């Protein structure tokens, strides 16, 4: 499948991943939601890793568990209904699943940051944008001084002001002095999302989780913001976990893509490999949904069937009801995720 | 948005009646309404004692079986006095609310629908009336007219309509901008009455909820004015006036001033519960 029209700017031999110093390792993560109508199995035994300065995209439809995955990693799951019942999240050799609330908070922002889908509601409406970024910087600094025993003088509001402007400039916001004095409702959607990125990166995290950051934006702005995020990775030494429902979006910027269905990863590969050799029928289905400009008539083929009921436990392949290649075996046991080639894993009996 | 079907009404009623607030409120209100109606029809004949007759028992007696609420400084039975005063507050409140409702809906619908200068006039006049507290204004009017139950009622009727007019106007504005009004206009059905048939039903709901809550407010204001001696004159019993008259006995016979006051609060609580339940039901029906 050729996707010349989907630009992929940084494919080069040098972006081959290293096998050690993973920023993030998720092992068998399982998260349930208790609801009045039953237990929803949102994330089902998910494992993957992210290396430094790499962009990994998790792609799936709504209900695939991708947002829950993101919240679980940063420890923002609403814990009365949600519960992590198995698995670990290891960030730079620290097992986050063992930490208590206060310890986990210490990692949020300055180690793992997260930006969300709707920037208008995600920014505090009564504070200026600059003030909110400044708060992020102040948090970073207070943590730095906690770690260093003989700390120097804390910076003042005015030193931080310079850094606020710098962080806005970094996300290519023109007229940053002016923008810092604005309230969120005075800015456009694209600007707000840039502000959120600026705010997150101002804390210098090693991992930025971006949950559908461009969904609420128009297509042109979408492309700009994605490109910005990609470019900033090297500049600030951050890895990005991009959560999205849009495979096309992922293909524009990801190094590796993990496809999720029904709370599980069904296929995971380097981006070129995935597009040249999609193995899982669901991935194929997703690819067929992408409109490509090269065809004269855009033929969109939706995936048949309907959304999975996650309250059920399945001891067979969750995609079986919708799979055009389903076999008897698929209804009997769950296909495990296994490697079919270098850096390519798939959970499907078609490829055993 | 269409005409209410009887289906919808049944569902509404059911949703309403299952709420605890509604049940509690209804029971309280029902008691007071029943008493009012009975008293209006039978007068003092059903009461244990004549409310204005003095020395039917010892002076300032505390509550006993013979005198449920005790007796006052002139030996009158307090229970009979409180019961016979029930229609006063309630009837005045109902009439005031009803008239404010009607006046408000008419003025508001006109202003909201036609807009322009009519709207401005309405808004500014309500602004002015809002600036003077209801009780103070009613007080001034009642003083001029002379203190009596009826005059007090007139005074309140004159000043109470602005919130209803504003509510109606707001709803009318929203409705008049909806598409089906446009299509009704273009299809030639420019008859005012037909549009009123669309407009009025949609305005009614929020106004009814507000009116129910508002009854409590009128009761309190009326009681306050009665306390100041601007409504019925002695010896006719009226709750507010009774509180004022018995105030000196606060230490020696605390039930005397407190009982009428608590009864007033009870009426207000009943209508508040009812109004809250009504408003919640309307909101939940709007969501579905």
């Amino acid at each position: 499948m050729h996707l010349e029209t989907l630009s992929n700017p940084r494919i080069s031999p040098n972006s081959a991943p290293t096998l050690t110093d993973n920023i993030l390792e998720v092992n068998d993560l399982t998260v349930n939601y208790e609801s009045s109508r039953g237990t929803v199995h949102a994330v089902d035994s998910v494992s993957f890793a992210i290396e430094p300065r790499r962009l990994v995209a998790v792609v799936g439809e709504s209900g695939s568990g991708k947002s829950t995955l993101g919240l679980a990693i940063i420890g923002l799951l609403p814990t009365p209904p949600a519960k992590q019942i198995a698995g670990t999240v290891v960030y730079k050799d620290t097992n986050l699943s063992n930490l208590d609330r206060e310890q986990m908070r210490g990692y949020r922002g300055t180690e793992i940051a997260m930006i969300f889908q709707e920037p208008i509601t995600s920014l505090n409406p009564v504070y200026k944008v600059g003030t909110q970024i400044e708060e992020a910087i102040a948090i970073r600094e207070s943590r730095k001084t906690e770690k260093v025993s003989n700390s120097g003088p804390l910076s003042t509001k005015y030193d931080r002001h310079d850094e606020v402007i710098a962080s806005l400039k970094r996300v290519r916001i023109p007229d940053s002095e002016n923008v810092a004095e604005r309230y969120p409702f005075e800015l456009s959607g694209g600007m707000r999302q840039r502000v959120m990125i600026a705010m997150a990166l101002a804390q210098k995290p090693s991992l930025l989780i971006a949950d559908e950051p461009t969904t609420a934006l128009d297509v042109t702005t979408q492309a700009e913001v994605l490109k910005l995020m990609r470019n900033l990775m090297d500049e600030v030494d951050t890895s990005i976990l991009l959560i999205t429902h849009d495979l096309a979006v992922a293909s524009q910027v990801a190094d590796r893509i993990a496809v999720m269905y029904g709370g599980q990863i069904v296929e995971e590969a380097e981006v070129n490999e995935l597009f040249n050799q999609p193995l899982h029928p669901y991935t194929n289905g997703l690819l067929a949904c992408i409109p490509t400009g090269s065809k004269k008539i855009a033929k969109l083929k939706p995936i048949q069937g309907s959304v999975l009921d996650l309250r059920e436990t399945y001891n067979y392949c969750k995609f079986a009801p919708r799979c055009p290649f389903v076999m008897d075996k698929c209804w009997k046991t769950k296909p495990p995720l296994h490697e079919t080639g270098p850096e390519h894993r798939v959970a499907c009996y078609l490829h055993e | 948005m269409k005409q209410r079907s009887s289906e919808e009404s049944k569902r509404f009623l059911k949703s309403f009646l299952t709420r605890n607030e509604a049940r509690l409120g209804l029971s309280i209100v029902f008691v007071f309404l029943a008493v009012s109606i009975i008293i209006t029809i039978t007068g003092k004949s059903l009461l244990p004692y004549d409310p204005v007759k003095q020395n039917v028992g010892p002076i300032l007696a505390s509550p006993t079986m013979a005198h449920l609420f005790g007796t006052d400084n002139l030996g009158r039975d307090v229970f009979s006095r409180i019961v016979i005063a029930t229609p006063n507050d309630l009837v005045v409140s109902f009439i005031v609310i009803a008239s404010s409702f009607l006046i408000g809906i008419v003025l508001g619908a006109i202003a909201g629908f036609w807009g322009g200068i009519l709207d401005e006039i309405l808004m500014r006049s309500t602004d002015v009336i809002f600036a003077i507290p209801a009780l103070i204004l009613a007080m001034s009017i009642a003083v001029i007219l002379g203190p009596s139950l009826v005059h007090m009622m007139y005074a309140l009727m004159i000043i109470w309509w602005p919130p209803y007019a504003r509510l109606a106007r707001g709803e009318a504005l929203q409705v008049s901008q909806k598409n089906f009004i446009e299509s009704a206009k273009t299809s030639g059905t420019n008859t005012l009455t037909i549009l009123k048939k669309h407009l009025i039903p949609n305005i009614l709901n929020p106004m009814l909820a507000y009116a129910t809550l508002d009854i409590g407010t009128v009761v309190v204001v009326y009681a306050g004015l009665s306390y100041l001696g601007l409504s019925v004159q002695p010896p006719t019993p009226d709750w507010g006036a009774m509180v004022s008259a018995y105030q000196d006995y606060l230490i020696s016979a605390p039930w005397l001033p407190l009982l009428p006051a608590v009864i007033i609060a009870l009426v207000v609580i009943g209508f508040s519960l009812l109004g809250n339940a009504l408003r919640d039901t309307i909101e939940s029906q709007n969501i579905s």
Partner: protein
Amino acid sequence: MNFATFVLRRLGLAIFVLLGVAVITFTLSHLVSSNPLVAWLGRASGNRVLAAEYIQKYHLNDPLYVQFGYYLLALLHGDLGFSVFKGEPVSEALAQTLPFTLQIAFFAILLTLAIGIPLGVLAARYNHTAVDYSISGFYLAGIASPYFLLALFLLIVLTYTLHLLPSGGAFSPWVIEPYPITHFPLIDALLEGQWSIFVDGLTHLIMPSLALALGIFGYVTRVLRASLLDVLHANYIRTARAKGVDETTLFFKHALRNASIPVVTLASIVVTWLVTGTLFVEVIFAYPGIGQYAVQALSNLDYPSLLAITLVLAVIIVLSNLAADILYAVVNPEIRLR
């Protein structure tokens, strides 16, 4: 529209409303009796000297619209008529009584916030539990109570049963009122270092203010509770958590700051309640403020005082609404800058 334009517009509206109120009081003064002198002089209208003076000053023989013009002029000069009952111009009587009422109002507002806000926070934090329901019951009882009930109730409990607080008056009998610097007795007492007088005044102030606060704090609690519940689920709270903000800062700087905004809109309800309730509370506690003045004027058919008080109270309400609107714009940037 920027802030200055906003303020000017509100100011213009306020002036217009005040004019309207003047029209109403003017109309009322002419409805009092066929003799317009009665509205200005009350029972002194028989007094030839005063009558002649007033007829001339206010052109009481001229057509209505001319009279209204002079009426406005009189108001602007602070001439509100003469109270025979008090034996002084109404404006003097007002000047003496208004500070006392304002003292009550000030403390009542403080108490309303001091009771209403923490309870609202608690009700939100423990929503749908017994704590929440008991708080609701508590404030519902307060809101539903007629003006005099809470005052009487407090009087019984705090004064006659527990003997904690005095039963009435602004000061104890032994107090000599402090020299009027600001004309607010409590402030004057403080300024002159008369601590015991200040404390005495304060103890006399508690019950009237509390009686008012208990009747109105419920609205603050209810609004704050609903608003907090909304805000705590907002996305920007999630963002703040993702930034690593600690829970205390999160609650006060982020959540409460946003949740308090709707509370400001209650200002007009609160002021109306205070203005009305003070009539009753001052009578029951014999506190020498405008409320007591008004009730006295009522019993004595002191028309000039009554009408003037109506006007003055309306002015207070309009001004506080204006202040509340401005405060709301300050607190909510969207209003001010859109």
